[in-house]
């Protein structure tokens, strides 16, 4: 019983992390129709920046604030000076650009921080454990899940209940009309992209203490986040929630029950969704 519970909680923690990563991806895709290949690279860069901030300040909390801010700024520059310039040439060029960017960030990180894995250790209550139904469990993993719920709720609130959210969603459907209504759409897209970058950095900071910080961290999360986006449906926040949960648990129990095939399981699930519902569980049909 307690083993099942522990693995369920492991699954929840990973699902939380997956949601934090894929929510930014979904936001940018849903709002700008750009699949941001650089997202996982931002995530990794965010984790490395946090690592350096932690080394200097000795605490986790400044890192969790500073790193998303730095990545937000980077996101502004990337959108304004790179992405915007290829937008008119269509989605292939946007994909190529963000892919190239991911490659450059990946290599820059290796150049600046080296290739050895770095441990990020939290202290204070986050490093403690808690006893749940007779099982001892690290608080940090529960913290990840809590944070992801908070971020998800906040995003839903902003997108569906505020004026900003309405404008952003309207700009996706008909950016010309929104622009005609006197709204600065390019500025809006820049803000959305930068928010996506900040979100991925936030996810990177959260992931650091759990998975440690290393150059391969981008690639492994990128694939999982892409699977989440495919399974959930591209651009759907609700789909991202459900798919993160499914894949997080599948990953966790896969390790418990089929250790040899755990990596392949999530791809099987993806293939299944692709056969039955190519647009994803919550996705809209392609025209």
């Amino acid at each position, binding site marked *: 019983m307690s083993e099942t519970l522990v693995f369920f909680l492991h699954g929840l923690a990973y699902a939380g992390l997956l949601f934090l990563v894929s929510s930014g991806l979904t936001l940018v895709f849903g709002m700008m129709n750009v699949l941001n290949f650089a997202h996982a690279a931002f995530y990794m860069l965010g984790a490395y920046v946090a690592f350096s901030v932690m080394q200097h300040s000795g605490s986790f909390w400044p890192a969790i604030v500073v790193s998303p801010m730095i990545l937000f700024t980077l996101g502004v520059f990337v959108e304004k000076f790179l992405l915007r310039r*290829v937008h008119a040439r269509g989605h292939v060029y946007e994909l190529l650009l963000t892919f*190239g*960017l991911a490659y450059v960030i990946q290599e820059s990180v290796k150049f600046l921080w080296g290739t050895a894995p770095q441990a990020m250790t939290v202290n204070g209550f986050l490093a403690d454990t808690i006893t749940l139904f007779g099982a001892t469990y690290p608080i940090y993993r529960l913290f990840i899940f809590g944070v992801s719920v908070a971020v998800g709720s906040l995003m839903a609130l902003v997108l569906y209940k505020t004026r900003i959210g309405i404008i952003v969603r309207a700009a996706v459907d008909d950016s010309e009309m929104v622009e005609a209504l006197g709204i600065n759409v390019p500025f809006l897209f820049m803000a959305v992209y930068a928010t996506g970058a900040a979100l991925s950095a936030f996810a990177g900071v959260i992931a650091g203490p759990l998975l440690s910080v290393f150059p391969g961290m981008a*690639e492994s999360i990128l694939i999982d986040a892409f*699977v989440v986006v495919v399974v959930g449906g*591209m651009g759907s926040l609700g789909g991202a929630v459900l798919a993160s949960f499914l894949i997080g648990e599948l990953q966790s129990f896969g390790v418990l029950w089929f250790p040899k095939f755990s990596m392949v399981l999530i*791809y099987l699930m993806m293939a299944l969704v692709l056969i039955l519902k190519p647009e994803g569980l919550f996705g809209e049909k392609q025209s």
Partner: protein
Amino acid sequence: MTTRGAVIKRVFIFIALLSLLAMPRLISGYQLRLLTEATIFSLYAVSFNMLLGYAGLLSFGHAMFFGTGAFATAIALEYIAGLPLLLAVAIATLFTALVGLLVGMLLLRVKGTPFALLTLAFNALFFSIGIKWSSVTGGDDGLIVNLPDIDLGVYNLNMFHEPTVYYLSLIILGSTIGCCWFFTRTAMGQSVLLIRENEERMRFLGYSTHISRLILFVLSGALAGLAGSFYAIMNAFVSLDAISLEMTTKVLLMTFMGGIGHFIGPVFGAVFYTYFQNFLSEMTDSWPLIMGLLFIAMVLMAPGGIAGLAMSAREWFRKRFTSGNSLKEEL
């Protein structure tokens, strides 16, 4: 004027072919290996461009075919005793085509961005199969390829002799690239181009756009498999690097930097990439950083790649030349 241009072009191609054939006399060892590698990557990039340049399908998973071809060659030679080398290459290519058919039937259900994303996920799937199925693929250790001699009846070709591998790659891969060029000129090849431009209209004209795209996808996969097969032969070894995301990145960079708008672009790209990487990696360990920055610069400023730059340079010279002429006539 055009006929003179055509003659110059033919002479140029003839000289280029002749010098390629003479290469083993001129350079040796390491340099020859590099040239063999460039030949292999040329076919790999050409096959990739059949998707990207001709069908407008951006794949981030081409290494799954390259790697499948490489591993299939090694595995066929290991498990089938007395298998002739070229038959192993053929088996690997056909097997990759089959894999391409299965993957294509799944992936081509979606288009555009979801397609790009799924190809990447499938590449990751193939890579993890490669790691997990270590009893067959050798896992992290890779596989040594047992290269048999090619028996020509009167003469045995030893595949550990560098010029032999070079000539074999040049002849087989070179003629395959020629066939690809021919294919793009056929009605079938042209129809793919038209589907990219206006799919709806092609459907109205009675073309099954889905089947055309699938055929192209399978063909492109099979050719990448053939390139991968030769990669295994050249190294006499296959590792997971052949099926990795880096191998996908490599073909993407090569093809785009060479130029996706022209048939010959990817060949330029493959040659440029191979030699430039070789040059850079002698100077710095972070050569991928420089390569990546160059790639981004080209996406932003030279979307036609090297072939595009060469074309505009030619246009520029021609304009200058002819405008000079007309100026003379006016005077």
